[in-house]
């Protein structure tokens, strides 16, 4: 299993879907682990009742059907599907409404879905935001999984694991084919009072995490890979370009 994850870390991200299905066919008994640990590009489906879109992922899947957070129905219909308890469903509905607004505020569009389920003694909540950008082809997808464990004294422990997948492609005369894509993952743990409700706590953590990730992405996606290129073949007039870069950074 570790070897499989190692492979996923090295294969070019644009091939990650093909790589995952290859691994699933070679290691069928590890499929549950693989599907939950490997981030895949997100797809959406339209809910038949409300007409709203929802995101397809491991957390709302049962067999080959996906449960919509808007209507709580499986698409395509499933007789024996898994459903969250009534209490969790209430939280789920509220969360979906709130996150839709959050999504609007930050992404000015895009799609978000929240799925909540019970994990033996714990609750797990999952938010997935997807957004298609306007570059030649650019796409940001974020998956946040929070595990909530109630502690004593009206507090709970929240363990957040977030992954952001970003993919950018440009193709023009002067710079040819340029493709930068991949994903990064971060974790955050917090113990918080339940006074204002789970949703509030989880929401704040996710917001903070997304901001951090946005910054990291800038450093990692752009910073590190660009640094590598310049190490391979330093620009010819290093002094001049560095000065220009410095000046333009100060001005922007």
């Amino acid at each position: 299993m570790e070897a499989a994850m190692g492979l996923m870390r090295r294969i070019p991200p644009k091939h990650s879907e093909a790589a995952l299905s290859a691994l699933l066919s070679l290691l069928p008994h590890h499929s549950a682990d693989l599907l939950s640990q490997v981030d895949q590009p997100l797809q959406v489906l339209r809910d038949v009742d409300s007409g709203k879109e929802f995101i397809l992922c491991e957390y709302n899947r049962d067999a080959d059907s996906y449960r919509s957070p808007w209507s709580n129905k499986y698409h395509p219909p499933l007789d024996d599907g898994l459903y969250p308890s009534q209490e969790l469903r209430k939280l789920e509905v509220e969360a979906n409404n709130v996150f839709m607004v959050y999504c609007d505020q930050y992404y000015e569009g895009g799609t978000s879905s929240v799925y909540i389920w019970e994990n033996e003694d714990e609750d797990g909540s999952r938010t997935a935001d997807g957004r298609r950008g306007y570059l030649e082809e650019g796409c940001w997808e974020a998956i946040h999984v929070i595990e909530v464990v109630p502690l004593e004294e009206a507090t709970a422990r929240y363990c957040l694991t977030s992954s952001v997948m970003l993919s950018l492609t440009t193709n023009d005369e002067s710079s040819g084919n340029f493709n930068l894509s991949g994903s990064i993952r971060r974790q955050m743990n917090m113990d918080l009072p339940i006074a204002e409700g789970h949703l509030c706590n989880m929401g704040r953590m996710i917001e903070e995490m997304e901001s951090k990730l946005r910054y990291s992405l800038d450093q990692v996606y752009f910073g590190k890979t660009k640094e590598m290129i310049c190490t391979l073949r330093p620009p010819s007039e290093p002094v001049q370009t560095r000065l220009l870069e410095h000046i333009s950074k100060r001005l922007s």
Partner: protein
Amino acid sequence: MSDEEETQPTDDQKIEIAKWFLLNAPAGEIQYIAKDMKAVLQDETLYTTAAAVAFPLYNKSHMICLDFPDRSGEVMVTPFSEISENEYLDPRTAQVAVVDHVNQVCRRARPANDEELPTPYIEEYRYALDIEVTKYVSEAYPKGICSVYCVNGKDVEEPGLDFELVVVISAARLSPQNFCNGSWRSIWNVEFKDEAQFVEVRGTLQVGAHYFEEGNVQLDAKHECKDSTMLMSPEDCAHSVTTIIRHHETEYLNSLQTSYSKLPDATFKDLRRKLPVTRTLFPWHNTMQFSLRRDIQKSLGLEK
């Protein structure tokens, strides 16, 4: 894949999968992928079959550089220097290396035969270009390697016929302890057209970078360009062609830099704002204020 009784893929399918993983390894990482692939396959024989096919292809495509056993020089494993599947020519030292692809080493070397080398006429051009390109590469790349091969017309003995040389430049920066690897490959086809007294230069530049600390981010960029110059003496041609190469490679690097400086703003501005329009963090405890605005937006059809 349809649901079948046995969900295990066939041996042939497993070999194909292993080959695919090996071939898609980023620069300098095939041995790591090899190790992981062996663990996932759990079958020595299948792995060995896949490796025997995948490694030569990978090595040639990445133009790996191997030392001669006696340290007399280096040989580049490329499609242009290939004499047979395990033998690669180094024109600089006129030796042929016998190569072990899977272990990525040169086992032994032998002097090249006359038939494997170009004629003195061609060699003049090849040699002159080699000198110029080597000089250029040592200036422009901290750790670059290069070579010049004759891919067409190596038996041409005097002016009157066309021939073609290929310049390959490869630079790799491997830093696994920093979770970062990168590679630059350029292939320049130089066609000498005798009748038109014309030299046509076509280049393919490929850059890759892989960063894998807590994630997997990869850059894959490719660019093609063309240029030409007059057919002159070997030294003058060499100088002219190298100038062309230097010019285009520098241009490409500059345009990559420009792409990098434009993308962050364009991307992030479009994809996710730093803060909502209100310039404050999202009010998780008080979301009622938004539902009214959203309803208005919806009825105006502004929501996507």
